[in-house]
């Protein structure tokens, strides 16, 4: 109840669930990577997924926008609903889903194009902007929200790959929010960054919570404590425990959670 409480705002408990997962199983060929996961992700909250390597947290994250579809031999069963709609329904258009559920990856992966084109790519393929000035506005707003505008406004036409690692990751976040999704998935977004860049991204996540629902996978428990309102602990493909971040870090119900957060294994 000490340092953590100062950072993490307590969950209001009034938020409705944005994503509902029920009995989700994932197989990679013969390997059972995710076992009977039931998890609710609440609107306008940051949900942190923690757990040791190979526990299935990234797999679960990638289920939410069906990025697992591109992996050969990956099979997902169970039910995941986005605002009540089953995203694994056969009639669902995966392109539409990904326009509503954006993603930021572990390694910054800007396109080898200009900063402007990186941000404008999503809106362009979805036909969001009708005119050049609308597009300019989307790019500016997205870069501002990603906290990159001041650094990038004079070099919008320079390649995005010329930015520093932290800037590249913020560019990737700007690219994701330019499409104006409802959910943003972040797969260890700070693992390739230095502490200063990490702090900037964390501040950004705080701000983005106003408009987006965020799910973040992280290996850093301090980060989970700092940025999230709810935390889910995965272990060996099982969802062990989920609850308000404060409770998970101060008073975990499960011994395994206790062991992991105190550093006894993982």
């Amino acid at each position, binding site marked *: 109840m000490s340092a953590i409480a100062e950072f993490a705002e307590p969950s209001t408990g009034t938020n409705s669930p944005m994503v509902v997962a029920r009995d989700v199983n994932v197989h990679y060929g013969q390997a059972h990577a995710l076992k009977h996961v039931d998890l609710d992700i609440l609107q306008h909250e940051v949900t942190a997924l923690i757990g040791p390597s190979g526990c299935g947290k990234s797999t679960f994250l990638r289920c939410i926008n069906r990025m697992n579809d*591109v992996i050969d031999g990956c099979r997902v069963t169970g039910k995941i609903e986005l605002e009540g709609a089953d995203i694994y329904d056969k009639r669902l258009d995966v392109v539409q889903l990904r326009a509503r559920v954006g993603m930021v*990856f572990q390694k910054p992966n800007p396109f080898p194009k200009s900063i402007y084109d990186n941000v404008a*790519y999503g809106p362009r393929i979805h036909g969001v902007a009708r005119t050049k000035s609308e597009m300019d506005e989307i790019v500016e707003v997205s870069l501002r929200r990603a906290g990159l505008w001041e650094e990038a406004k004079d070099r919008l036409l320079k390649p995005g790959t010329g930015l520093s690692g932290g800037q590249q990751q913020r560019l990737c976040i700007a*690219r*994701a929010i330019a499409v104006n999704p409802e959910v943003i998935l972040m797969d260890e977004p700070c693992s390739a960054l230095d502490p200063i860049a990490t702090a900037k991204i964390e501040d950004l996540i705080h701000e983005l919570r106003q408009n987006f629902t965020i799910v973040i996978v992280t290996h850093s428990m301090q980060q989970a404590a700092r940025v999230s309102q709810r935390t889910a602990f995965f272990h060996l493909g099982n969802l062990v425990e989920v609850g308000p971040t404060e409770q998970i870090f101060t008073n975990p119900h499960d011994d395994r959670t206790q062991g992991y957060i105190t550093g006894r294994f993982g």
Partner: protein
Amino acid sequence: MTDATLPGGVAAKIRRPDLSEARLRRRYSSERRFRFFGLAAIGLAMVMLVLLLTSIISKGWPAFLQSYVTLEVTFDPAKVKADGTGDFRQVMIDALQARFPEVTDRRHRAELRGLLSNDTDVRLREYLLENPDALGQTRKVRVMAGGEMDTYLKGQSTEVTDFSGRGIASLVDIGGGRMRVLVGANAFSEVLAATKVALAAEALEMERELFPLQRRVADLQQALAGATDEAARSGLAVDMADVQRQIAAANETIADMRRRAAASGGIEVLRDSLPSFIARVNGGAVRLTEVGNDQALGDVLLAPDSLADAAPGTWRVDVYQVAETDRRFKDRQIAWVNDLEARGEVDISLSDTFFTAGASREAEQAGIWGAAVGSVYTLLICLALSFPVGVLAAVYLEEFAPRNRITDLIEVNINNLAAVPSIVFGLLGLAMFLNFFGLPRSAPLVGGMVLALMTLPTIIIAARAALKAVPPSIREAALGVGASKLQTITHHVLPLAMPGILTGTIIGMAQALGETAPLLMIGMVAFVVDIPGGITDPSTVLPVQIYMWADFPERAFEARTSAAIMVLLAFLVIMNALAVVLRKRFERRW
């Protein structure tokens, strides 16, 4: 302290005592060995390349040059008209006749005409059409020398040695087209010695030619010993006697030649099979038939300006090492050309036909342009077919196709196709495109289609490798913002893979450019004089042209073969340079 300042001391200090010194030495020596072998391999490759280029360039450069003769031509209105009608060949013959009026013999006149390219009449007609006012006048017209004359002027016909004359030479006309050349005492001793050397060489050559006869005698003897039938025995005996008679006669000749070669002085009779000795005195030429120490007798090839005594140094004897019977350019023609040269009526300059003309049986009229245009058309067809098909196939197989038995089978087959001998594709083209679809023979269209079949596996394999090399993070990024699979590929993956695809394509194209065998099958080995004007015109390609020229017996075509190889290599270098430029332009970092 002193120990540490010495290099050996430092090494001793730094060395770990538990590691084996010998093992370390072995590691270093194996590294040195490896580097030596690598360098040696590169050195060997460089030497081979330099040898190849030197050989090709040294043989090929004469083809870029061409000899021209400036002829005084009278455009007689009785024979030709300004509209280009009439007998221009007669005009040419008249011009030659006017230049060498003493040539009257029919055979000699044919030789005289043989100096010039056989399309000279066409050139003269063109000249008159361009300059109609030349009708009825005598104009200096520059016309192409024939292939044999051209070869002679470039020094490739026969090796020439000359003896510059010592003392005064005087000519005596003894009638019947023969002359006596009188020189001071022993002034011809060198020439005589040279004839004796040639004699000895010929004797050796004749002796060598006897070996098969001697072997035949041995065979006959064996057959005689084994034969039982009386009729067969008598037949064999007759054969044997005949062969033995031939050998005896040859041996006698050889002995005679040896004797003459060994003896000093005397008078040597020069036979046709010996090198030609031509005395050039007072602007005339006498082919020597009998040589003594101080005089010689010979046939007049070209009449001298005068019979006055020639001062020392103004006359000489040229020796043409290849006997007249063994070359196509005759002594009389040499004499005429020397005369033309001496009067500045011959010049060698850059050939304007080699880069502009199509194929021809006459070396001086043959050019590379027809084949080059054919090659360009063929490659364009090949590129237009194989690039889109290859890239689409690669994209489908790499990005869309499920991994199953059928796609595995297709993959194996594509890899195998790349190793199929190219002539098989030629047979396929012959059977399918020509016989079944009835497309025109010898056409770049079909050539390009056949080469496209051959190039496809190369392009598909290169394109698949390039697509595979695009980092998955880029695909994820595009998919993550909601791009469809096709958008991901066309917007991000293909542009990034393009440098690799282009490299593979250009390698395939370069391979296609050098391909001969499949094109022979579909008739592109045809002799095509015209420059192809489209993809369905009969044409040939550079490598086939090289193959055809290499087959022609004239010396002039040897140079043209090498020159065509140079053109082909230039094409390849240009294509590879293009590949580098394209790769640089499309290359993006991520």
